[in-house]
């Protein structure tokens, strides 16, 4: 029995890679101006929010749970930050406050799921409504604006065009990377780093695989399982920052429905419902896959709801691919664990 199975397995790459490549090729062929640096920089900049919450969605899913409240928490964090800014609080404090709110909310979710043992679907279903109504409450159901100068540092920092700064003002702006992109990149890099380089990955996998044997291995199960939800909340907060900066205002429905897109992206990325497997890069690529659908449809000038249809079909396709990849694993041997 050859224990050194070096042949290529489709499962070595996150499943969303294949979907992304298929979509990329499809759109590059059919959509004019798709495969251009200008478009790519647009994609990079705008997909950020989805990327962030997809990362956030991955953690609870990997532990075998789910976070339906993520979108509403974005609204809540955004409103909190908006209220702070409106009242003249300097931007960096407001931002930290908002993220803290998100993290705390996520912690409460995790507590309800793992300490009080309410099933994750029901918990986050309930807290989704709670977060949404809190957002409405704090904002009086209105859009919140603030004076320009309170967050000028933040806006300036995030909106600057870095490449332009670094390479001087070129005549033709081929490719631009704004501060936002850098910011997202930093957050993403930090998440991947923390996930892979500290014990998060193996402990979360172990918890998702079999929570009891994880406990027997000496893993602090509560810390990581509740932490997974806290991270989801934290990511919602960070995503809220981005939306805030881009739209220069905060509305109580700014995150509505985003949790589903995040879950779809994460699922396509291999973070399946039973937990114990999956990856952060998978979710990121999944987020991009979903995003380029919207992007391509816009370019084609089609009704934006065409993207809904394509996304739905992509999701189903993604599940089928997940299944096929798992079957290949089974065939290629090993996996008796």
């Amino acid at each position, binding site marked *: *029995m*050859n*224990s*050194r*199975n070096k042949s290529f*397995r489709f499962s070595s790459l996150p499943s969303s890679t294949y979907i992304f490549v298929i979509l990329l090729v499809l759109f590059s062929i059919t959509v004019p101006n798709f495969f251009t640096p200008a478009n790519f920089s647009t994609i990079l900049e705008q997909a950020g929010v989805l990327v962030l919450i997809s990362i956030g969605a991955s953690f609870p899913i990997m532990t075998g749970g789910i976070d339906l409240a993520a979108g509403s928490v974005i609204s809540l964090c955004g409103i909190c930050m908006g209220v702070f800014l409106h009242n003249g609080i300097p931007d960096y404090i407001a931002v930290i406050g908002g993220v803290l709110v998100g993290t705390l909310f996520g912690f409460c979710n995790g507590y309800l799921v793992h300490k009080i043992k309410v099933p994750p679907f029901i918990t986050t279903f309930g807290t989704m409504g709670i977060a949404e109504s809190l957002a409405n409450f704090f904002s009086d159901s209105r859009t919140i604006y603030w004076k320009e100068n309170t967050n000028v540092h933040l806006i300036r920092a995030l909106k600057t065009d870095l490449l332009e700064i670094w390479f001087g003002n070129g005549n033709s702006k081929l490719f631009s990377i704004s501060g936002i992109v850098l910011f997202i990149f930093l957050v993403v890099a930090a998440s991947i780093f923390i996930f892979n*380089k*500290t*014990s998060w*990955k*193996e*402990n979360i*996998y*172990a918890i998702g*695989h*079999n929570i009891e*044997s*994880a406990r*027997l*291995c*000496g*893993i602090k199960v509560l810390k990581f399982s509740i932490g997974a939800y806290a991270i989801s909340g934290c990511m919602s907060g960070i995503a809220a920052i981005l939306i805030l900066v881009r739209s220069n205002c905060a509305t109580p429905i700014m995150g509505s429905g985003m949790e589903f897109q995040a879950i779809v992206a994460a699922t396509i990325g291999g973070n399946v419902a039973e937990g*114990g*497997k*999956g990856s952060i890069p998978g979710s990121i690529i999944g987020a991009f896959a979903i995003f380029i659908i919207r992007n391509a449809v816009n370019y084609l000038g089609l009704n934006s709801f065409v993207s809904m249809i394509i996304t739905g079909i992509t999701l189903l396709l993604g599940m089928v691919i997940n299944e096929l990849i798992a079957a290949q*694993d089974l065939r*290629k*041997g*090993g*996996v*008796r*664990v």
Partner: protein
Amino acid sequence: MTTCEKGELMEPLLELKGISKSFPGVQALDDINLDLYPGEVHVLIGENGAGKSTLMKIISGAYQSDEGTMEVDGKQITKNSPIISEQLGIGMIYQELNLIPELSVAKNIFLGHPIKKGFVNQDKKMIQKSREMLKQLNMDVDPSVLVKTLGVGTQQMIEITKALSREANILVFDEPTSSLADAEIHNLFHVIRMLQEKGIGMFYISHRLEEIFEIGDRVTILRDGKKIQTTAVKDINMDQLIEKIAGRKIENLYPHTRKTPGKPLLQINNLSGRAFKNVSLHVDAGEIVGMSGLVGAGRTEVARAAFGIDKYFSGEVILNDKKLKKCSPRESVKHGFCLLPENRKTEGLALPRDVSENMLISALDQTFSFKIGSFGVVDPKKESAIVSQYISSLKIATPTARKLTQFLSGGTQQKVVLAKWLVSKCKVFIFDEPTRGIDVGAKSEIYKLMDTLVEGGAAILMISSDLSEILGMSDRIYVMCHGEINGEFDADEATQSGILQLAFGQKGKEADENEQQE
């Protein structure tokens, strides 16, 4: 050189004194004394249900003993738990491996206690250390590879490495070779010998008798929760071993009387599937046919395939001269063929549902007051009539038919499962471990029921790991080993040791004689 000779001069790593453990209705362990010396391989052997796994669970801390003491390195352990036992240096290698498939070898080995610098894992160091540890076990695996890509034998080695990485000096192997190929077994033994030289003491539970003689230093035989004997492996031979494993008095709780068999109701011809090959057997009307063999021999797999739960590759199943065309439970039930599964709680009943629902689920058409096509309206009067009829005829111990089956005792649950099939008017039954987890009183009731069934012309195939049950109830006995039928006995010629020999993979005495003649 055995360590027993050295052993007299050394302190035991582990000592169990007077360990007893009972569960409702059954005494799992009775006054067990056991010890383990450094560098020895101490084999534990016994039938299914002899108490080996309970003993292991006590050592690992998953169970607490009712009486008795446990000492590790001379210190008495007052409270044990899986985490404590690990800290004491006890490493368990279970049959169902405990690795995370989507993580790398190194990460699995260091699961729960990674090498860190501050917050950051030192992956390179863990990989390197894993590689070293694996090399010591003669394994040339790349530690950065995902566990799921590796074969079972390799995974087991990783499990061993994992235990060793926690500085275990006592290892407990539970059926380590049951899924290994010969080459992997060879490697395992090589590793075990290396560990012996390091002074690590090992308990080794196995059904494979040849292995005992190859790798064991001492052997302890358990039977019915009692220790029969501990002896040096060199002081005993195969036949004596089997005698001691089996040799109990067969009590007379088996009311079965032999009937004249009628025509074959169940015929399985050359059935081959994932876990079994070329299985052929038949059960005639009026017969109880026993199916014996060790755990993992493939008996349940054959039953599931024949009944239609799992797909099989080739062969046929014939019921009352009609070949089963579709491989599905529904089809089988239509032909009057049913299975009482091994795991009655998860596969035989829906625990959250009550007695009445469980009993009628396979035969709802009998409760219809009227029907349109296959949509039928259930008549509660008919329901309760049928249900009370069977509750009384099977003496099912439940106050009402509305009681949820999860609250019934094991024996009562089994009766409900049987009732379900009786309501469906089945004539061919496969009972898989019919009396497992059932107390003595209920056991004899079930035996009486089985006897009554075959008296009425039914055919029963009874899979059991309880030898006395097999010998007491069967008219004929098939013995399976390694996925094949290794032999067949008529009730008159069957003996415990005869069955065990075939079950353990020995050829029958007849076959031996034939070989000698050749």
